[in-house]
């Protein structure tokens, strides 16, 4: 196996709320290989967005990020803000779920690309302008030379998402953090955006962490998947094997809640009960109260994320007792 591009160990993010410190990312371990798409799935509130923000250290004080985020062998957590800024946008780009709110409504799309180029490249004024047009073309926006001066509200939803991708890609990042980039879009547009991301990954040799709560998206576009639950990684591994034979009771529950994740496009309708609020779990398996396999062993300690064969990881005490997923054989 190649050395990972990004290697996260024990990532812990604490936010300050009225109720005091809340740990929303609770010891996450992840690897991203160069050029791969890692799916990050989990129910709403499981800490997917916070994990992405923590990688770029976009957590505002008094919120705190700790643990290790090894980016090409260099730990980002202790970096100074200025050093971190050279990585944000330049080496690691990020796109958000809702382009309508993530794009500044009063700046043209071109201006929002130029900002990035000014910060990270030595290009002159006209070269920057040319690059902005080229980027819009790259993400499939027609008549890019005209559209570059348009404002976000003049684009359709899908085109806005393409524009946001163009902005994030301006300085050729090696990793793109994509936070539910298709959730706000129509199904047909979702497909187009996913295809665009896969195409860009292939042509730009860029890795992607794709946050989604749609298992169909993972099956269709990801190489590897990490399942998040209550700010912790439940399971991690290559998509095929994980979907065929999940090694965490939560993953199994997720897969069973969708008739056939490879064809259906629907949000997760998981297992009875609701995920716990962050920080209320304590030293036990976070999924235990909703788990059909739960035993006393799940309640006594927080199950560690252990290495299994084929580079798979699981934090399930009963990982080898789970039934195979019904549609595994197909």
């Amino acid at each position, binding site marked *: 196996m190649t050395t990972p591009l990004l290697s996260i160990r024990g990532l812990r993010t604490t936010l300050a709320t009225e109720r005091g410190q809340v740990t929303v990312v609770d010891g996450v371990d992840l690897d991203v290989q160069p050029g791969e798409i890692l799916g990050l799935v989990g129910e709403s509130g499981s800490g997917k967005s916070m994990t992405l923000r923590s990688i*770029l250290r*976009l957590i505002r004080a008094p919120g705190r990020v700790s643990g290790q985020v090894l980016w090409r062998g260099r730990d980002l957590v202790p970096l100074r*803000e200025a050093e*971190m*800024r*050279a*990585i*944000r*946008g*330049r080496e690691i*780009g*990020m796109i*958000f779920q*809702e382009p309508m*709110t*993530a*794009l*500044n*409504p*009063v*700046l*043209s799309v071109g201006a929002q690309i130029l*900002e*990035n180029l*000014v*910060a*990270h490249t030595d290009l002159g004024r006209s070269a920057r302008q040319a690059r902005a047009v080229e980027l819009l073309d790259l993400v499939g926006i027609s008549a890019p030379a005209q559209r570059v001066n348009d*404002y976000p*509200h003049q684009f359709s939803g899908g085109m806005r998402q393409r524009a*946001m991708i163009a*902005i*994030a890609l*301006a300085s050729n990042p090696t990793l793109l953090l994509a936070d539910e980039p298709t959730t706000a879009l129509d199904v047909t547009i979702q497909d187009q955006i996913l295809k665009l991301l896969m195409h860009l990954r292939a042509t730009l040799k860029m890795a992607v962490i794709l946050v989604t709560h749609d298992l169909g998206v993972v099956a269709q576009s990801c190489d590897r998947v990490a399942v998040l639950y209550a700010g912790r990684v439940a399971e991690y591994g290559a998509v095929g094997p994980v979907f065929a034979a999940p090694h965490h009771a939560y993953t199994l529950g997720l897969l069973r809640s969708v008739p056939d994740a490879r064809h259906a496009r629907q949000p997760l309708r998981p297992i009875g009960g609701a995920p716990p609020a962050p920080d209320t779990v304590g030293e036990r398996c976070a999924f235990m109260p909703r788990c059909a396999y739960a035993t006393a062993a799940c309640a006594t300690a927080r199950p560690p994320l252990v290495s299994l064969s084929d580079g798979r990881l699981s934090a399930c005490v009963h990982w080898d007792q789970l039934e195979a997923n019904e549609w595994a054989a197909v």
Partner: protein
Amino acid sequence: MLARLPGRLLQMIPTFVLIGIVVFVLIRLLPGDPAAALLGIHATPEALARINAQLGFNRPVWVQFLLFVGRLLHGDLGISVSERIPVTEVIARRLPVTLILVVMAAIFALILALPLAFVAALHQNRLTDVALRGIFQVGLSTPIFYIGLLMLGFLGARLHWFPVGGIGNGVVSGFYHLFLPALTLGIGLSAILMRSLRSTVIGVLRAEYVEFARAKGIAPWRVLTGHVLRNSLITTLTLFGLNVGTLLGNTVIVENVFAVPGIGGLLVEAIFGRDYPVVQGVTLVLAVMVSLVFLLTDIAESWLDPRLNG
């Protein structure tokens, strides 16, 4: 926006008509008899009748109104009762000072409110924020004439840093003389602006597009100026437009405190002198100024916010 400007100007006509009606009616509700005030101890019934006829006050009200509108359309605001020259001339002589005063006050208000709103928002709920809000709260609840008197008494009379009234001679001296009155007006306005601006800036700081800008790795000051400031300015303008009426109202007070010979002072003199045509004229001019500022803020807003251009 420029394409829509003629439309916007046309829209102002009914506004002006309405202003004219209101001014006409209000003036007739003022207590006192202008003829009696003019004549003072010489008021005989015959003299009173003569003056009333001269001013047209003996005609039916609706005739008076038509005459008023007719003259207005010709830019004729009547003759000042006390100065016996056209009201337009009286106003033209005193309007420039007020315009300069108001513009200076607006600039002071922005210079005070905008950066401090930013500082407060960036230190939300910390000591700096609480202190700033406290100070502006005091500013908000202090009557404007009292702020003016404090300025006058302390910076003017006590420390002799500034003149205590009038407008001096020449441009430099003029600005120097208008400094304190403009500052007084500006403080009053900034207290109003500051409160809403702080929450606006806090909102903008939390906006996802600011997060996205930060995720691009651009420098913090560029995030602040290019995104937060720019988007907060739109609200600032709206607030400014909404409060310009208060600003002009305060001008009347402040011009009197600082003996500034603008139209605010003129209005007060005219009211006490029962100079109806002048009261009418000044009120009209003030109302038109408010409408024009509305228009200007509208134009500036749509220049700053492309969404308004459809």
